[in-house]
């Protein structure tokens, strides 16, 4: 006998699980701080920010994966991952607790040589090449955890296969006047991307990248390795990997997506996306039985609307108690709107209390905050939203200026300890 004739027995699996080959693996970038959301992301990563009464931003990407039949994905975390870790946990709420595949949270780690933080979106994937390799995928889908949209990735993968593309980038047609804010794809008549412009002054295209990519894994792998060796690279998909693939003459296609899609990177866009849920005309429909958006929620009793409650044009979820008036607003679990309080055009995150006779308008109030009695939120408008951070306490009779942004510490400094 010779060594080359030795054979492993059948049914031999890797140590920890029955991992089998997967055609498609998704990698979800969820490490961003989302610093433009200020106090809302002081203690949690942006994808963990609550949205729409009982969801978090990342629920959309996770539910999209689940509904698209992509059952194997890595979630790349780095900034304040505790909340996100325990939120995702086994992936059960998204039906992603698969034995063969499922969802894996991937923080940065220390190897025999050194420990390295993720230095950029591309570096985060690079550091997890081994994770991806164990599934021997043909295709890798790269997603971002901070967009609100419902998208069937499997259709995009099909498109990618049909075109035999090396890389497919999902694009949205945006109004020409706004195009300059985006990364834009210049395509030929066959949807093939011939050029790429990052926030140009004079746009040649109005097809904006959604940050959703499908790669042939072997192509992505080789470009990640080459990019890592380049000391001048900032290890970013948009700045380095995609330009390099384009320059190498690989076939890159644009996949046009015309559904609802919103980057909730600013307070105003986050507020707007929440309000879109209350709009009859919005494309953002959560009632679609074929495309459930899943989330993890503790069990609470139904919400209670007291005898004097006045509720219109709003979404209210479990555990809330409404004694006052709620108009055109979204209340998350466990929120209390006390007697005489008026909440309009606002988003009130979990377990927050609005005291008696307080008037809240055009605001996002984060979780576990306490707004005292007779507090007044002045003015405000869709382009000027006030934010009260998690755990903040606003004393009785305080006046919150329009567009104020107050973390718990700010509030304490401003009003003293209550």
């Amino acid at each position: 006998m010779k060594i080359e004739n030795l054979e492993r027995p059948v049914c031999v699996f890797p140590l920890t699980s029955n991992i089998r080959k997967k055609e498609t693996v998704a990698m979800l970038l969820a490490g961003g701080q989302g610093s433009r959301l200020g106090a809302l992301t002081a203690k949690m990563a942006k994808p963990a920010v609550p949205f729409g009464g009982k969801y978090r931003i990342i629920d959309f990407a996770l539910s999209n994966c689940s509904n698209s039949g992509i059952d194997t994905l890595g979630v790349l975390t780095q900034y304040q991952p505790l909340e996100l870790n325990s939120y995702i946990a086994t992936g059960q709420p998204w039906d992603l607790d698969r034995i063969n595949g499922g969802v894996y949270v991937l923080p940065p780690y220390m190897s025999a040589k050194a420990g390295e933080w993720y230095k950029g979106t591309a570096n985060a994937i690079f550091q997890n090449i081994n994770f991806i390799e164990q599934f021997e995928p043909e295709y890798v889908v790269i997603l971002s955890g901070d967009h609100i949209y419902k998208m069937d990735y499997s259709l995009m993968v099909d498109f990618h296969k049909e075109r035999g593309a090396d890389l497919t980038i999902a694009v949205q047609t945006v109004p020409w006047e706004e195009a300059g804010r985006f990364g834009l794809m210049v395509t030929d008549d066959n949807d093939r991307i011939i050029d790429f412009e990052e926030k140009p002054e004079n746009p040649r295209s109005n097809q904006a990248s959604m940050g959703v990519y499908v790669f042939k894994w072997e192509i992505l792998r080789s470009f990640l390795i080459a990019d890592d060796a380049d000391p001048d690279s900032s290890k970013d998909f948009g700045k380095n990997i995609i330009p390099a693939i384009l320059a190498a003459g690989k076939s890159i296609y644009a996949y046009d997506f015309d559904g609802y899609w919103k980057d909730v990177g600013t307070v105003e866009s986050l507020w707007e996306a929440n309000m879109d849920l209350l709009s009859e005309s919005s494309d953002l429909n959560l009632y679609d039985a074929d495309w459930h958006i899943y989330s993890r929620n503790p069990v609470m009793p139904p919400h209670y609307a007291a005898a004097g409650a006045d509720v219109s044009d709003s979404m209210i979820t479990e555990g809330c108690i409404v004694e006052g008036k709620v108009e055109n607003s979204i209340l998350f679990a466990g929120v209390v709107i006390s007697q005489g309080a008026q909440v309009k055009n606002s988003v009130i995150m979990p377990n927050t209390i609005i005291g008696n006779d307080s008037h809240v308008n055009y605001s996002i109030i984060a979780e576990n905050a306490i707004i005292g009695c007779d507090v007044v939120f002045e003015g405000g408008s869709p382009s000027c939203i006030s934010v009260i951070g998690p755990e903040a306490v606003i004393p009785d009779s305080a006046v919150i200026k329009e567009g104020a942004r107050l973390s718990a510490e700010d509030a304490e400094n401003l009003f003293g300890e209550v």
Partner: protein
Amino acid sequence: MKDVFGLIISGTEDQELRDLTMMRSIAAVPIAGRYRVIDFYLSNLVNSGIHNVGVITYRNYHSLMDHISGGVEWDLSRKRDGLFILPPMSQHTNHNGFYSGTAEAINGVKSYISRCAQNTCLLHTNCRTIFNTNYSQAYEYHKSSGADITMMYGIPGNKTEPPSKGEAMISVDESGAVTDVFPGRTYKKSDYISMDTYFINKDLLLRLVDDCVMRGGTDFIRDIIIPSLGKLNVKGFYYTEPSYKIDTLERYFKASLAFLDTGIRNSLIDGSGPVYTKVKDEVPARYSKSSRVANSLVSDGCYIEGSIENSLLFRGVQVARGAVIKNCIIMQESQIQANAVLENVILDKKCTILRGRRMVGTENHPMIVAKGSTI
């Protein structure tokens, strides 16, 4: 409570609840806007630190099994112990699979009982009381009093009504010993009503049940407890927290509406620990411009355009513009079309009330509409 396992008989002939128990056992009856009756039983056990629970199923147990199977929601999905669904038939019965009485039900699951690592059984012979408790005090009493059997008894919240037919009342002497157990409708010797909840040593239970079945007995109270009075040390533990019987339709209706009282609701839903139930993926409740709501409990997935007062809406209920709902219990996924009027009505799951229809019951005789009806 490490040495205690729970055993729940999830239903017997519960005729008094009429249409609500036609298609399901009483344990699976929806209650309080988003729960099922058994949620209270399971949560009480788990919150007391009991992690081994057997549920004896009855005739129509599809909906019960759908609801509890796996036990994850109650943290009873475990490698050791956990939740066991015990089908009503067993290799030990010679019958066609159904038990006719509570003693027989227990007899059918003797092999489960023998296998339990714990030595004390916390037995619920029925699921017709809504209460929220931690059993540790009662268990301490059971141990320290040296009782063979400890029965929990109390005065339910809906005590102004006379006892119902199927109810067991008990008399207790000064030492805490149970002196008599008698049916509610016969004669009145005390105000104390059995909570159908017992602490009993596992081996004693097996022996009593064996003995009872051998003599042709079928009922736990009639054929086991009553003959034991005076012979065994049967103690009563007085339960002082609020509890509500739901053994008749009227009581079910009143107990449900009691949840609208914030004090009662708080004590029943989180008095000694939270009540766990199965989580569904529902959108938050949505109110339109034209909606009105007062003194009501509304679950996720509801879409309210009409008017609601003194009512409980389970998940996914639609109330169209102009519809008026007052003193009602509307179960999952029912639809109330435009301008329909409902007062003192219990709608079971998936009912449809057509445009402009009007149904009015009274407080003491609510109307009930069977599951899936279109009116």
